[in-house]
């Protein structure tokens, strides 16, 4: 057992309101510079839809992630040898049009327009050419099912959903959508790292954050193509690649990442988990249907004495072990088994997890009629027993979060429904009847677990949602500098101290 710590996030999709506050916070903090105009390290997608960059899940085109060939994992992008011979040729790279041409507006014209008999206006202009432009793409172009016949209908996750249901989903009485925020998944088996010819990308030992070393990056952009989530971006001004850094400077000072901190729906949970690095290869190599379980198997129980012993032996401090025990991510992912990695079939072992959305629920169509009024004894149980009637089709969610396996999604939705039915019963009827308890049991849970899930879902404190131990950066500083001298110098902003006589 080789125990390591990882700082991971869980997104509770039922709580996301699609406000994009997270995207704005991230953009303002990190990508409001020359060369980063089109980058959104954090973006929020309407699903069904094609996301940003548009159609990023189409790996036939973008060649991201790993594929299993003859029992071995290979980059879908190219073999190692081909990577070197094709260093200057990378056809799988997304182009600017796959993202969007960044635009601004000629606001100055509002002040400088010559006098005339019509009101002046700020026209859209390209941030690249400075010329007037027609805007035909953006980082959130299919928001709220905009252009649904072009985008939502072409969402690759419809695969396996019957054409009748797909057609119904395009009818106003039946449409449903949810929001899905995305950042870099800080994968355990990242293709961005594997594809880099310069060895510039690395996964930090202490918390698993995947970073690009800007000094080493030579701008080959293999990572951009190889990341199946399209979460590495090329900065045209510096000629280097950039990506989400999980706000590590904030983490190291005990603050939540900006996207987390600003989240209006409070859908984000951040915490440490312990995993067994020896199990990475097995987990990434598992049969497609076993991928989720194999990844869960690599996540360790931080209460087990042998795990604790191995963690200590590996150099992990007790505060990290304690943080792993209190981690909301551990609870959602491993204890309650409610959260899943996005597209596990990419085999990068994404380390951010999603609780699939349940809303909007309960609507049945019978004899072509919309039926909400069921006999009172059936209302609660209708959907529980007929998940195939859920508005967001099971197969669709399975394609997003379970490599197509409905059997992985089903127990999660049933448990989430059981929580809802139980808590509703409790607050409306002020008592729990036998039928409800039967549902609780059928969902494989207990009233105690339901209360705990409810508490962390509906009214957690910040301290319950954000559990990250101290990073002890002062000790790292001590190795090469006197902490007091260092403290006095930091405000001056030198990254490398000037040396006298140089």
């Amino acid at each position, binding site marked *: 057992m080789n125990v390591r710590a990882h700082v991971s996030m869980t997104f509770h999709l039922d709580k996301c309101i*699609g*406000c*994009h506050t997270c*995207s*704005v916070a991230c*953009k*303002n903090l990190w990508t409001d510079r020359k060369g980063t105009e089109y980058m959104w390290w954090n973006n929020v997608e309407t699903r069904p839809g094609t996301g940003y960059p548009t159609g990023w899940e189409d790996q036939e085109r973008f060649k991201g992630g790993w594929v299993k060939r003859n029992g071995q994992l290979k980059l879908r992008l190219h073999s190692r040898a081909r990577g070197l011979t094709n260093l200057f040729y990378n056809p799988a790279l997304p182009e600017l049009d796959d993202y969007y041409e*960044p*635009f*601004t*507006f000629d606001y100055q014209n*509002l002040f400088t327009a010559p006098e005339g*008999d*019509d*009101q002046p*206006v*700020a*026209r*859209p202009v390209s941030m690249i050419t400075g010329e*007037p432009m*027609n*805007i*035909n793409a*953006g*980082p*959130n*172009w299919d*928001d*709220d*099912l*905009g*252009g*649904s*016949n*072009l985008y*939502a209908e072409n969402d690759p996750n419809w695969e396996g959903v019957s054409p009748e249901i797909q057609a119904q*989903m*395009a*009818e*106003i009485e039946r*449409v449903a*959508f949810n929001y899905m925020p995305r950042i870099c998944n800080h994968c355990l088996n990242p293709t961005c790292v594997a594809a880099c010819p310069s060895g510039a990308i690395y996964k930090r030992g202490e918390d698993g954050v995947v970073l690009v070393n800007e000094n080493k990056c030579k701008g080959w952009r293999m990572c951009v193509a190889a990341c199946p989530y399209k979460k590495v971006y090329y900065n045209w001004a510096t000629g280097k690649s950039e990506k989400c850094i999980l706000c590590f400077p904030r983490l190291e000072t005990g603050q939540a990442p900006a996207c987390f901190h600003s989240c209006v729906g409070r859908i984000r949970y951040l915490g440490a988990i312990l995993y067994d690095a020896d199990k990475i290869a097995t987990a990434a190599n598992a049969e497609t249907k076993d991928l989720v379980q194999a990844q869960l198997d690599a996540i360790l129980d931080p209460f087990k004495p042998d795990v604790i012993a191995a963690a200590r032996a590996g150099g992990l401090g007790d505060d990290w072990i304690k943080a792993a025990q209190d981690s909301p991510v551990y609870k959602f992912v491993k204890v309650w088994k409610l959260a899943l990695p996005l597209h596990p079939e990419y085999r990068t072992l994404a380390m951010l997890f999603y609780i699939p959305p349940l809303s909007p629920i309960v609507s049945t169509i019978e004899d072509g009629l919309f039926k909400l009024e069921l006999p009172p004894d059936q209302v609660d149980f209708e959907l529980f027993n007929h998940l195939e009637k859920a508005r967001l089709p099971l197969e669709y969610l399975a394609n997003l979060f379970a490599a197509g396996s409905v059997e992985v999604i089903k127990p999660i939705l049933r448990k989430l429904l059981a929580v809802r039915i139980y808590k509703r019963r409790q607050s409306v009827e002020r008592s729990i009847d036998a039928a409800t308890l039967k549902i609780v049991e059928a969902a494989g849970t207990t009233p105690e677990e339901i209360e705990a899930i409810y508490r962390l879902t509906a009214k957690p404190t910040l301290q319950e949602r954000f559990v990250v131990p101290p990073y002890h950066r002062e000790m790292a500083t001590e190795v090469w500098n006197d902490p007091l001298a260092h403290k006095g110098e930091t405000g001056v902003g030198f990254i490398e101290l000037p040396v006298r006589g140089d």
Partner: protein
Amino acid sequence: MHGLTIPAADFYDDLRQRQGRKLNGTTYPSLENALEVAEVILYLDPVSNGELAYRAFKDEEKKTGQKLTDLAESVRDTRISFADIVAQPRRQLTSPTWSAIINQGRAYSPFTLNVERLIPWRTLSGRQHFYLDHPNYLNWGEHLPTYKPRPDHSMLLETEVTRAEAQGMLMNYITPHGKWSIHSTYSDNHRMLTLSRGSYPIWLNDKDAKKMGIQDNDWVELFNDNGVFVQRCIVSARIPSGTVFVYHATERTVSIPKSPLRGTRAGMNNSITRARLKPVLMSGGYAQFTYAFNYWGPVGVNRDTFVYVRRIEEPNW
């Protein structure tokens, strides 16, 4: 506000001292520049002056017979000045001029004062009631909220003249609150326009759009007797057929081209609607139907109408 009388003469005197200005021999608090105006507002408002919050509750106690001053007891010393809110955002204080209890970091939730501290609702019965027995309401059939069918477009007389030049489809136009802004919220900034479609698009149902030969992101012109609106459109299955909508309170400064039909700069979302006074809102002098600025009075009903919708080629700027 809310019929409360809050004695504030001492604070008024303070202001005369602090930022006095002489006029015809008398000293008044100066309202000469924006900063001074802001200070006056903050100093005389119970949500930023704890003593006034306390006095307001005192007055409310007299009216309701409920114990209420405890809600402001601990903040009687608090004064939030303009410099304070420049330094960092501050939480405002609980006050009966609003309806929520926001003490101890509690989020604003309307009417918690009424529900939890038994301040009667400001209606004739002191409760929430839907039934309005005012004769005007009875005469207009508005005494209970009931379903009313969509009026016929000819009744509105807003498409009569345009009918002669009619092109495209006649559709119901509505202007709901936006996703990222309501009313005059500043929304034409670079960030939010980038996260939407870089303009104030016209939403259309996909099947309606098909009938008119309109595709997603095409230019569309909406017009009637009142005016004209030109924008790109979003085609979506989530819009009901027969309806066209534009999120309301669009600016007229960004991305608005000239109207091919009228030759001049196209308008904003309200250019094609017209304010109509709702007659029942002019009834007054009876219980809660009592005029108060920004509370009760006739409003312009200017959100819906009928428009002709047509596809256009790239317009001029």
